[in-house]
């Protein structure tokens, strides 16, 4: 076996060329909290490891001129959690990213790694989907942008082409009285994998919901954008029957697996429960925003 090489380039173009030259054996290293575990287990044996944390654009958080945010794909969770204005505008996105692992894991784990590892149960992804986050991708043919929900292709697989790197997430500007929330169901209080995860983002005008998005995790091969659930909320004042209709849309969208963490029936039921709870938290926050 040839030995593994390590590179820490300072520019995206250098990183892309190195990945292309490695002919499919290259792996991107962000926080390494998935990659190193997989290497220790012998599941992946990269020919080249490209540490992207020397690329400034990937490790910074910025407010965009229109009032949105750009979060570098490799920013560690703990750093995201310390950004006060981001936490005010997008508390659901921040709480989802901060749910990843322990304090130690937060010191390294990134939202970019969470998305590109492509676990259906990745905690930050339903919240980013609900937020309408857009992924900026840099590759051999320049840049492209896609909605976050289009990045994962299935468990452990993404739609990134060879040599492509996820650079950052862009969150749109926030109208007044908008907020979001993320909830996951785990059997313990900390350090576990979501049985179901649900992100809700919404805008209220005089108590009426004028915009909403719902992201659902761990109930299908990829995280789902549940448009029918959002449609059930929009136009309502989040009365019980509107919430029940949105919960029903979430249950209908579920295509979960049956495993030791939860049966199909359980995951499906919990998806509806979490939708109602997350929508209530998001609405409460929006009322105060």
């Amino acid at each position, binding site marked *: 076996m040839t*030995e*593994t*090489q*390590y590179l*820490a380039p300072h520019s995206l173009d250098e990183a892309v060329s190195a990945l292309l030259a490695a002919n499919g054996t290259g792996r991107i*290293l962000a*926080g*390494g*909290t998935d990659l*190193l*575990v997989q*290497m*220790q*287990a012998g599941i992946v044996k990269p020919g080249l*490891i490209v*540490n992207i*944390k020397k690329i400034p654009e990937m490790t910074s958080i910025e407010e965009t001129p229109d009032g949105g945010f750009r979060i570098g794909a490799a920013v*560690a969770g*703990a750093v995201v959690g310390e950004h006060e204005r981001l936490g005010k505008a997008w508390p659901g996105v921040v709480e989802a990213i901060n749910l990843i*692992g*322990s*304090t*130690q*894991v937060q*010191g*390294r784990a990134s939202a970019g790694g969470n998305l590109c590892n492509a676990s259906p149960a990745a905690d930050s992804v339903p919240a980013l989907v609900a937020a309408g986050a857009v992924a900026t991708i840099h590759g051999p043919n320049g840049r492209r942008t896609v909605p976050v929900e289009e990045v994962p292709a299935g468990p452990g697989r993404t739609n990134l082409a060879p040599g492509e790197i996820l650079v950052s997430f862009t969150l749109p500007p926030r109208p007044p009285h908008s907020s979001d929330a993320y909830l996951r169901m785990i059997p313990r209080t*900390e*350090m576990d994998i979501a049985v179901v995860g649900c992100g809700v983002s919404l805008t209220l005008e005089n108590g009426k919901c004028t915009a909403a998005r719902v992201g659902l995790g761990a109930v299908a091969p990829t995280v789902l954008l549940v448009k029918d659930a959002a449609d059930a909320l929009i136009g309502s004042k989040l009365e019980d029957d509107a919430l029940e209709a949105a919960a029903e849309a979430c249950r209908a969208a579920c295509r979960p697996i049956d495993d030791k963490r939860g049966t199909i029936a359980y995951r499906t039921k919990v998806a509806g429960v979490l939708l109602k709870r997350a929508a209530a938290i998001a609405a409460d926050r929006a009322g105060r925003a």
Partner: protein
Amino acid sequence: MAKMHVSTTINGEPTEFLCDATDTLLDALRGPLGLTGSKEGCATGDCGACSVTVDGRLTCSCLMLAAEAEGREIGTIEGLSQGGKLHPLQQKFLEMAALQCGICTPGFLVASKALLDRNLEPTETEVRYWLAGNLCRCTGYDKIVHAVLETAAEMRGASR
């Protein structure tokens, strides 16, 4: 293949070492650097026995490549006592019997110090969440959590 050369700072001392691309920081600490205070409990980020700080941020050294230490400031358990004097956390762990076999202890101490460095008034809940990534097989968590809370109270008193 040639080894990689890494220049870093460990517990305030400029340090250089050689490593392979796939060596973890924990491998380098316990191997060429001879700093065996950091323990390997799992090598998968679950137990916290390998906890170190990197530029002040708490991290599992088993989930970081040694090569990534280039140009960074690493803090390990060996840096806690100063001039032969135990850190107040170390003293309190002894007094309150917050350890038994001791394999988890360096990780708990490094993690607890990282907490007290940023918050000298943590609640019990905050201590428990902060330390959720540190596992102990023998002592149980109550003694450890109480030792951290006691130390914080003492350090607040001393700084008044």
